[in-house]
């Protein structure tokens, strides 16, 4: 590891502290679901350690609890986590094309909604940054799940509410500052939120994961068609 790698690992680790707290609170519910489905404390926290994916785990726990099949598990994970493929593609092109494979795979650990959010504003992206984020966030997720099973009560509702909102607030702090500086980004943000709200209210059957995939492709394509940027975003801020 070079000096820069260590620095980026530490930065990712520190930046993800709000994620640690948010995950800790939210994963209590995952633990309770797991217990109700008949999983042991070890099984539930092992699942959290091995996956770190909220919607995917909740779906899998439901399938396990209702005595479903391996095929159902497989299909549910593909459908719910397909958005990581897109997020991975977005981050992959930010890396140096000559970056070694094992270093690229460090980024894969950081492909959760929240660590992706943090990583998406790093230009250029050092693969140790998302890995550092995962090192901070994953223990929060695993520990919260474990305690959810053992204590079998949720955290006080007002604490969970406040910490859940803090994750969205973090997303706001990532999206708004660049939108302030660039009208095209601002417009993209507004259109995305409006489209997301329209899907939420008018197509209730559409899952949140699928909505992210469909709208990211659709709205980004529109933005790219109307407001093309010339310079590659792999190494620096794109110039219009």
């Amino acid at each position, binding site marked *: 590891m070079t000096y820069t790698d260590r620095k980026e690992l530490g930065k990712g680790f520190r*930046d993800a502290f*709000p994620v640690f707290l948010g995950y800790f609170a939210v994963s209590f519910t995952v633990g309770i679901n797991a217990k109700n489905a008949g*999983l042991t404390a070890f*099984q539930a926290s092992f*699942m959290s350690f*091995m*996956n770190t994916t909220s919607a*995917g*785990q909740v779906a899998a726990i439901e399938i396990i609890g209702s005595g*479903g*099949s*391996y095929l159902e*598990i*497989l299909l549910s*994970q*593909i459908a719910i*986590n397909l958005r990581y493929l897109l997020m*991975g593609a*977005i*981050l*992959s*092109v930010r890396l140096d*094309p000559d*970056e070694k494979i094992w270093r*690229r*795979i460090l980024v*894969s*650990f950081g492909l959760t909604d929240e660590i992706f*959010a943090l990583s998406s*504003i790093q230009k250029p992206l050092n693969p140790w940054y998302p890995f550092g984020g995962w090192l901070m966030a994953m223990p929060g997720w695993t520990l919260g799940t474990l305690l959810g099973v053992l204590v079998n009560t949720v955290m006080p509702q*007002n604490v969970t*509410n*406040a910490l859940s*909102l*803090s*994750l*969205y*607030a*973090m*997303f*706001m702090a*990532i*999206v708004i*500052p660049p939108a302030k500086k660039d009208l095209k*980004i601002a417009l*993209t*943000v507004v259109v*995305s*939120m409006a*489209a*997301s*709200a329209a899907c939420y209210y008018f197509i209730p059957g559409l899952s949140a994961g699928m*909505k992210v995939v469909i709208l990211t492709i659709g*709205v*980004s394509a529109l*933005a*790219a068609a109307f407001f*093309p*940027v010339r310079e590659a*975003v792999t190494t620096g801020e794109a110039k219009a």
Partner: protein
Amino acid sequence: MNVYVCILLMSAVTYAIRIIPMVLLRKKITNTFIVSFLHYAPYVTLSVMIFPAILYCTSDIRTAAVGLAVSLVLSVCNAGLVGTAFVSCAAVYLAQLIF
């Protein structure tokens, strides 16, 4: 079904999805449309995740609205990730005491 087989299967699928783009997408992209697409995509993804979900993440839409407003103001003022997250969190906590 064996729970451990389930967990390993989930993990294999989820990490395959996470690893595939990192391993396969290694060329420098020069096509303007794709470069532009990837430039806007993170903002779209995050915006879609924020709204309207932020309104329903607390048990009361009024406290969520307070959190949304506070996080918007702080983000506009460039209060930073951690600052925005913590102050919005505190605002929601306090709003819950009032409503």
